[in-house]
């Protein structure tokens, strides 16, 4: 079936609402407006105002209320418009959602799903272009996932709802309009990383909105005789070390592509894990392609220069492979 990532997520929401009475969606402008990225368009007409619940601009309060509702037996899906605004509810997520189970000695769990859009690329400037996945992936008690394929966009929500603990789903804004063939939803997985392109020379590790750029870079590298393997993390916390290490041990080289800023990035964490566990299997230094250390600038040429691009990934591949650049 041909569909878009937007429609895939909408279908996932619809299915979740149909299957489980306890499920409801709340967030800013999810109802009458139809969602700021039009994900939930039409759902309020279908499921009513109590289950597609518009909230005031009160990120801390409605995420906190989601935590409470989850404790109270509901299965809330809270949409925070974008990761940028999630900074206003960081406290509720980090200090309450992530800690309740532990602080209560395992008595309480928080089966809450939080969805948020992430990423840059639309010239929305410094306050609307963050990729802060790694901040959340830092926190024990949270599960953090990032769909990169249509199947995962369609299938991950359900798996997240089945999880007894808080799950954050990061949806990259560049994916929503993308169209493709949706095959089997059952292949979605939130636990295991996936090899999206097998190869033998080098492993390119990526997630979310950067999968397509990375696949393109792999195709481009093939023209210069480099057979790159592309690994889609899917889960940013916990990380699937096993799949990562198996791939790196096979190819003996790795580059991590991550839209987070270079310093303190998820790429840094993954690189360190490889160094810790597979150092002697490597034939070349580890490398990463991340966002430049600058708040995202508004002009297109500067924004594009700040972000990982197909060309910068290809360049890094050549460098690591020891080809002249």
């Amino acid at each position, binding site marked *: 079936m041909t569909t878009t990532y937007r429609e895939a997520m909408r279908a996932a929401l619809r299915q979740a609402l149909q299957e489980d009475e306890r499920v409801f969606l709340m967030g800013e402008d999810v109802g009458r407006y139809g969602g700021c990225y039009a994900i939930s368009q039409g759902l309020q007409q279908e499921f009513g105002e109590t289950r597609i619940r518009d909230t005031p601009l009160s990120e801390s309060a409605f995420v906190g209320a989601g935590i409470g509702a989850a404790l109270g037996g509901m299965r809330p899906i809270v949409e925070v418009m974008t990761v940028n605004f999630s900074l206003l509810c960081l406290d509720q997520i980090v200090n309450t959602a992530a800690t309740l189970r532990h602080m209560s000695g395992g008595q309480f769990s928080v089966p809450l799903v939080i969805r948020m859009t992430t990423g840059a690329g639309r*010239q929305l*400037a410094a*306050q609307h272009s963050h990729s802060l996945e790694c901040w959340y992936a830092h926190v024990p008690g949270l599960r953090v996932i990032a769909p990169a394929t249509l199947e995962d966009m369609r299938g991950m929500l359900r798996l997240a709802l089945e999880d007894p603990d808080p799950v954050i789903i990061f949806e990259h804004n560049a994916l929503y309009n993308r169209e493709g063939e949706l095959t089997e939803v059952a292949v979605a997985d939130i636990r295991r990383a996936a090899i999206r392109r097998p190869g033998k020379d080098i492993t390119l590790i990526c997630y979310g909105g950067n999968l397509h750029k990375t696949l393109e870079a792999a195709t481009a590298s093939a023209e210069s005789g480099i057979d790159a393997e592309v690994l889609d993390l899917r889960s940013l916390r916990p990380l699937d070390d096993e799949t990562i290490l198996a791939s790196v041990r096979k190819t003996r080289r790795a580059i991590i592509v991550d839209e987070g800023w270079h310093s303190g990035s998820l790429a840094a964490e993954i690189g360190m894990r490889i160094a810790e566990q597979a150092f002697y299997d490597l034939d070349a230094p580890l490398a990463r392609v991340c966002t430049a250390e*600058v708040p995202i600038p508004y*002009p297109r040429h*500067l924004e594009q220069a700040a972000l990982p691009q197909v060309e910068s990934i290809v360049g890094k591949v050549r460098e690591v492979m020891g080809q002249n650049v």
Partner: protein
Amino acid sequence: MSAPTSQVSREQGLRWLKDMIRVRRMEEKCAELYGQEKIRGFLHLYIGEEAVAAGSMPELSAEDAVVATYREHGHALLRGISMNAIMAEMYGKREGCSGGRGGSMHLFDAKTRFYGGNAIVSGGLPLAVGLALADKMQNRQRISVCFFGEGAVAEGEFHESLNLAALWQLPVLFICENNLYAMGTALARSESVTDIHRKAESYGIYSSAADGMDVVSVNTAVRAAVTRIREDKKPAFLEMRTYRFRAHSMFDPELYRDREEVDQWKQLCPIATLTAQMKAQQLIDDRDIDGIEKDTAAEIHSAVEFAEGGHWEPVEDLTRDVYTESR
């Protein structure tokens, strides 16, 4: 609510008209340029709400500070940032008032003490409180004015800021531009108490509401509030009841309100209202309006030329201005 316009002098009225028309036409041009993809990203038009900025800015002195939101083109222009610098910023050119780095949502200007251009709803309120705190601690007589939409009222930062300003008796003027919608969420769907100025009262802050579609009413309210703040050295709060005629941003299909409602509010257009009043009082005639329109068209024309002729910053400078460069 409307104050009698009979006291409006020809000179004062013409200034307001000119200010509002400059904002209106500049933004109409921006919408057109957005269609041509000269301006990118988010663009939030102030069209319909011009009376608020036009009635407020003349009451501020050059030393006062202004904090605004992403819907700030009018505030920036009427605060005195040149249309050239604003337009160049919209393009993302180096000659823009933020060096091109900010774009439409992040207009800044140190000279006129214009502190943005904040695209996080309610993000500017604590900033204004802090600016006022600095003034108080250094015994300066200036005030900080903070513009924000009614959507911000639901955020914790709104309440925390009002409390702090009242508790520490800081010279802040909070101006809530209540245009009834936060994106697609109507005020009555997001607030248990919709009389916003009453919320400020609960913090012991002097507070009132004014007709934000009427520049005279706005100006009267702002003048009274500013005088009070300068005398009492305490914050004040104004709720301006207004309406945006255009979509929230260029991406909004406006599914949440009826055409008729928008049309009704358009009848209250602040430019048309003041023009009609002044004409009825024979303070102005068509030639005055034509003159303003002509001057404005010329100003816009040269601003667009200026922006077109501006420069793209070289990519080598990508990481500039992240930290102070000379320490």
